């Protein structure tokens, strides 16, 4: 770790103390990451259940830290306050209702998904769809969507780390090696311990991440407002900025409190994001790693603690307005994503700024690890085993998964280092639209087989194409570039709404109409490997043990006679 330090201190404006604290905390989590392979030790990590799901035995508190560390990503911590700072409540504060209504929604379906996955050894949602309809195409569609949506999300975790490093004074060097060396080192280390410890690594590191985040945000929210004149002054400054007319667009700069024209935008952003979040492979991976059916439900009541913190964090974007924070990057351009790290550097002693930087940077490592594991599991289970090597053993599956986790991370790194950061953000916007289109095939299928598999597949395709096209057509009024906004006029209503939800509505319509036609025509809806009782199975269900002992095909309902 000494090499990056020497590189750093040669740059201008480097905050040496903050960097030292950041590096020290990074070293701590590195040790923890490698040590994690011994956590709740298994005989061997050579199966997807062990490497990719931590043995499916995490209890309520581990799951709370793991899911919290997984869902509330570094990018969230950087981007939500940035959106508040730049354009206000509709773009930023919707994250609060989103992460509140998220939990009643997952409370309802996650227990069923957990049970059927536990009973049949499913590791991914595509596994479940495969078992429910015996349909390889629909399963592949779900797998590929999950994989594609996850990639830019991993890349954005790197963007979060970059923001911290930039404020700390690293990254502005003209020498590309020196500029990106810290990021390369951080990701190489992350890749190494994820490879060796699997899901146990982020599970252990999540404790450090979440505690750091709580401490940093609470200290900031207690201390900062009085420094800038209290909450009255903060909201006053925000209102003034947001209602000022933007010279380029002629419209207000942003929204202070959503007006009547923004109601649909605020509500559909919240609902669409809440429905989509647990369709992402990394959310499913963390949920399925829990040890019992009720663990996720208990967590649905406990996880909103993080939403409270996220709301406070969002308001830090407005604290920065009142404080006059200047988020100018090392390249001399204004980058709102630097606003939170910059705020900490301006107002706190260097060592505490270092703790805050570490909270964000470590905050990137946990989701990046889980996302790469989840994407890798999807690849090995639903593409490698399903399409390339049908007779793969559990050990081969795990091996492919471990290698795939490296490839996925390498790809994310190349993506961020070679392309404009804006590309990652655009793809993340698309990813959110895409992943929601898998909702009917996954969640509705947990309850009913009324929907026809072909209808679900065509509905998914229509939603994907429509959503992608609309997102491309959304022009940013200031820069004039495509993918400028997640919002678009809702057909039939006229107000702006979240494109993912419009695409979702179209997806549903197509699915229902086709289902009616295909059912009337008596077209086969595939065979179902699951039984009604599977959706209620709990830990230590005797049938689960039976199946695992007999290593049978996870997609089949019954063990095969051998």
């Amino acid at each position, binding site marked *: 770790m000494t090499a990056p330090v020497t590189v750093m201190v040669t740059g201008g404006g480097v905050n040496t103390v903050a960097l030292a604290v950041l590096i020290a905390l990074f070293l701590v989590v590195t040790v923890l990451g490698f040590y994690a392979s011994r956590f709740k030790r298994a005989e061997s990590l050579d199966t997807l259940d062990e490497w990719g799901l931590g043995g499916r035995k995490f209890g309520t508190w581990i799951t709370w830290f793991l899911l919290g560390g997984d869902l509330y990503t570094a990018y969230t911590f950087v981007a939500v306050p940035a959106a508040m700072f730049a354009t206000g*409540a509709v773009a930023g*504060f919707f994250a*609060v*209702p989103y992460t*509140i*209504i998220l*939990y*009643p*929604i997952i*409370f*309802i379906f996650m227990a069923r998904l957990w049970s059927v996955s536990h009973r049949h050894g499913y590791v991914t949602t595509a596994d479940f769809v495969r078992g429910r309809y015996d349909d390889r195409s629909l399963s592949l569609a779900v797998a590929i969507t999950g994989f594609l949506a996850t990639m830019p999300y991993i890349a954005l975790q790197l963007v979060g780390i970059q923001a911290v490093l930039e404020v700390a004074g690293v990254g502005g060097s003209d020498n590309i090696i020196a500029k990106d060396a810290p990021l390369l080192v951080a990701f190489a280390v992350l890749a190494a311990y994820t490879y060796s410890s699997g899901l146990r690594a982020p599970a252990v590191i999540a404790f450090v991440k979440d505690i750091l985040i709580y401490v940093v945000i609470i200290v900031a929210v207690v201390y900062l407002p009085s420094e800038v004149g*209290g*909450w*009255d002054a*903060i*909201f006053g400054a925000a209102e003034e900025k947001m209602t000022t007319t933007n010279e380029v667009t002629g419209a207000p700069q942003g929204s202070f*409190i*959503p*007006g*009547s024209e923004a*109601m649909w935008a*605020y*509500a559909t952003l*919240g*609902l669409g994001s809440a429905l989509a979040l647990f369709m992402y492979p990394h959310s499913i991976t963390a949920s399925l790693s829990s040890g*019992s059916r*009720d663990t996720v*439900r*208990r967590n*649905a*009541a*406990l996880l*909103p*603690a993080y*939403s*409270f913190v996220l*709301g406070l964090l969002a*308001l830090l974007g407005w604290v920065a307005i009142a404080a006059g924070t200047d988020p100018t990057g090392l390249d001399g351009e204004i980058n709102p994503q630097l606003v939170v790290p910059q705020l900490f550097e301006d107002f706190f002693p260097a060592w505490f700024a270092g703790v805050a930087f570490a909270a964000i940077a470590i905050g990137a490592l946990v989701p990046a690890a889980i996302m790469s594991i989840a994407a890798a599991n999807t690849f090995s289970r639903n593409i490698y085993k399903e399409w390339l090597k049908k007779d793969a053993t559990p050990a081969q599956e795990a091996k492919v998964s471990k290698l795939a986790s490296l490839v996925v991370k390498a790809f994310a790194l190349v993506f961020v280092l070679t392309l404009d950061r804006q590309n990652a953000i655009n793809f993340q916007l698309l990813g959110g639209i895409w992943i929601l289109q898998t909702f009917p095939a996954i969640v509705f299928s947990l309850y009913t087989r009324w929907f026809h598999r072909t209808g679900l597949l065509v509905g998914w395709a229509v939603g994907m194409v429509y959503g992608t096209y609309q997102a491309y057509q959304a022009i940013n009024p200031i820069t004039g570039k495509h993918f400028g906004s997640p919002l678009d006029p809702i057909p039939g209503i006229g107000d702006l709404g979240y494109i993912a939800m419009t695409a979702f509505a179209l997806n549903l319509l197509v699915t229902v109409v086709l289902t009616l036609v295909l059912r009337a025509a008596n077209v086969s809806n595939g*065979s179902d*490997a699951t*039984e*009604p*009782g599977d*959706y*209620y*199975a*709990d*830990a*230590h*269900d*005797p*049938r689960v043990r*039976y199946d695992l002992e007999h290593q049978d095909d996870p997609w089949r*309902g*019954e063990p095969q006679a051998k």
Partner: protein
Amino acid sequence: MSLGKDTSRSGTPDVPVTDKRKIAAAGVLLLIPVVALLWVDTYAREDPKLFGFPFFFWYQFMWVFICSAMTWAAYKLTLSARAPRKGDDQ
């Protein structure tokens, strides 16, 4: 794929006996926060303020706690709505 064979192997019944009224009550508890927060018109205003926070903000923060409590209550209701199955841990 037959149910009979499966039951004889494990002795686990299919679907637990469920008190539908309790499940419905839990459903209502879970639905309330979703409706409340998606109905933006009811809270997109500045007054009354609380500790300098416009209504819009403190109201949504308040729902973090209400939603959490309702979800916990729904959890307790679903537990009592379904008798433990033979073969389950509880």
